[in-house]
């Protein structure tokens, strides 16, 4: 190899970021264009091309009806990386841990009305199933999304759902100590599987979990189910809790809502990016229109059964306003 061409000169950053004008951030360096399964769209995985898992990724990721010439241009508006996520959430957990601690010291569960605690058995603690379902759903979209920057948002979103599961379980045990007679920690599965107030959410969750196309699954979870759940459980239920002197639930819900707002920020950015491509608006509006009535029904079933609530009016309106803000509903 004598007449070799001029050797490539070192660059200031990764070759795939080198032609950008601005200096790459930590976020750019560690998050961008990492999915190597996207290098060959015909054969995502380096094995037999006809392997069922190659089919699965071709069909549900590469050939999704939601199109973009370069999904890797997506950026998380919060620019979270693993390092900053832990800093953020360690701070948030210190806050929530402090709430648990202080309210417990003040004998919070002994001071709230008995009737309200009974309401919590039916309307709050079974939510660990629902939140866990959100955790599973986000983990699915994460493993199918077409760009690592999208996937990363979903990994963190899934972890946030586990965070909500954990808070719910913590409170379940505390409440069981205040009222050992109500079956806290034992009856949630029965409430979740059989009580009418949960069936709308359960139906939407179960049906959403078997939507395999990455983009439709994103629509179901991030644009329909999650907003519905958040408005009903972190919104409506928290309002009713406040009027029953359950300040702890209200503050906890607000803390969890910070996560939900972050999820909506990145989801909105992704929708915005998708809408720049012809044909996506119609498809997205069609999917939102198809799934949202089930979410409305779910909110009505849940809030309608909750005494002292507005029957879900505000929750439905907030969910629809979110979708309207995205340009996915008139």
């Amino acid at each position: 190899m004598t007449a070799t061409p001029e050797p490539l000169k070192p660059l200031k950053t990764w070759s795939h970021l080198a032609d950008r004008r601005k200096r790459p951030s930590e976020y750019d360096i560690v998050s961008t264009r990492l999915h190597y399964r996207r290098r060959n769209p015909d054969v995502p995985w380096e094995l037999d091309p006809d392997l069922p898992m190659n089919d699965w990724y071709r069909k549900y990721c590469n050939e999704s009806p939601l199109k973009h010439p370069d999904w890797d241009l997506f950026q998380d508006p919060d620019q979270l990386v693993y390092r900053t996520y832990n800093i953020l959430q360690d701070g948030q957990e210190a806050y929530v841990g402090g709430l648990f601690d202080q309210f417990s010291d003040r004998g919070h569960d002994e001071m709230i009305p008995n009737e309200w605690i009974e309401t919590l058995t039916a309307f709050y603690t079974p939510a660990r199933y629902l939140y866990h379902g959100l955790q599973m759903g986000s983990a699915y979209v994460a493993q199918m999304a077409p760009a690592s920057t999208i996937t990363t948002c979903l990994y963190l979103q899934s972890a946030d759902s586990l965070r909500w599961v954990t808070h719910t379980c913590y409170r379940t045990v505390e409440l069981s100590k205040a009222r050992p007679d109500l079956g806290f920690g034992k009856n949630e599965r029965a409430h979740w599987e059989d009580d009418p107030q949960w069936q709308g959410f359960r139906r939407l969750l179960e049906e959403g979990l078997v939507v395999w196309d990455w983009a439709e699954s994103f629509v179901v979870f991030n644009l329909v189910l999650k907003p519905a759940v958040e408005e009903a459980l972190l919104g409506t239920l928290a309002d009713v809790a406040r009027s029953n002197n359950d300040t702890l639930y209200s503050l906890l819900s607000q803390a969890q809502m910070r996560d939900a707002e972050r999820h909506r920020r990145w989801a909105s950015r992704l929708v915005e990016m998708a809408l720049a491509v012809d044909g996506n608006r119609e498809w997205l509006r069609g999917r939102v229109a198809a799934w949202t009535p089930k979410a409305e029904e779910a909110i009505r079933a849940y809030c309608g059964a909750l005494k002292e609530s507005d029957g879900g009016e505000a929750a439905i309106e907030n969910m629809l306003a979110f979708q309207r803000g995205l340009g996915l509903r008139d």
Partner: protein
Amino acid sequence: MSKLASNEYYDLVRTTNWTPRYVPESELFPEMMSGARGIPAEAWESFDEPYKVTYSDYVATQREKDAGAYSVKAALERANYIDDADPGWVSTLQAHYGALAVAEYAAATAEARMARFSRAPGNRNMATFGMLDEMRHGQIQLFFPHEHTKRSRQWDWAYKAMHTNEWAAVAARHMFDDMMFTRDSVSVAIMLTFAFETGFTNMQFLGLAADAAEAGDHTFASLISSIQTDESRHAQQGGPVLKILIENGKKDEAQKMIDVIFWRAWKLFSVLTGPILDYYTPLEHRKQSFKEFMQEWIIGQFERQLNDLGLDLPWYWDEFIRALDETHHGMHMGVWYWRPTVWWNPAAGASPEEREWLESKYPGWNATFGRCWDVITENLQKGREDLTLPETLPTICNMCNLPVVGAPGDGWNVKDYQLVHEGRLYHFGSEVDRWCFQQDPERYKGHMSVVDRFLAGEIQPQNLAGALLYMGLAPGEIGSDAHNYAWAGVGKQQAAE
């Protein structure tokens, strides 16, 4: 009353299975993704991870870990350690990052597979943390090498390697994709977390951290040991899954998965780690030979773990032990000889002193592998570098996608284990590689190795230059001898003395 202890609510966090009503259970957990193998949900609920963690503990601990590792990096960055580091160590880092950083990020996908599809709720939560862990390992192993991109284009491969058709990258992808991205949740738990992570990487990372400290690279030492501390948390998922399979009469299936992936992991380590420990690491920093390292850190503990679970040693165990004397020497010679086809500069490690060390660790080395290095050394001394560079491609194994190697010289035993399957002739580097194929030909049969692609005319022009182009390697990236042949008594360093 104050705060609850985590053990008071921990079990509830993993009491999350319910009976679906609106979609059939088989649709919610498709067998292709779940791999529950007919074992009912209740049996999977007995999954009990030994190492427990809660969300708040997780973010607190991990925040601290990153604070530590990133501050070591920041403190040492201006010292420019890397500019004075031994070239063999620089190559070690470049090979390591290129083969692992992007693959570790991808491993989060395998964890996500379990987080969604495992029938065991404890598994789903641990996999959610595992997902975060692997995301960390990908991100941190991109952030650390990024500071070196200004030094050489080879550092770009920390990011780029896995996105190319470079042969080592193809081999790594074939292994990783087989082990963790194209398998059901239960197989991932066994193959990735049990056979690979507890079997190999845990100890590999300990060994590499020790080597880094020995070489004076404290940034890398702290990085690697920090990553290693995460491993035991998510690597524990395979054990409980294996227990459930065995209790439910699926021992043979479990055993086969372990046997296949342990061998595949061994082959990958024989090209990635073996040469580093026995040839790239400067002689004065070598604490153990690769073989001793494998014996002390991998074989003993893996035998123990299999035994504890009531599993058997893989059927090829004797052949594996025998291969510890041989395979990585062959892989090393292959990588060095075909050095323009990798993104780092292989260190020959064949100076007279190093050869003495090799002979002491591997009696008979001089009469076998040494014979080839005799010829190479002689050619370099006669100014015939051209004869130390390849003009053809090696035969590549259709399982591990690595060269078919064996002992040369007096112990010549190189053999191609061939197989004709549905009219196509396949080549394998060992009986075990061929056996892996035969266990599940549908997984592998349509795959083309880099040599298959060359012969099929997919690589143009059909010569070494065309192959380099196909592999994404240009001058400035392609490998050369790490020490400019000083070890052979020639080259710049020698001339300067």
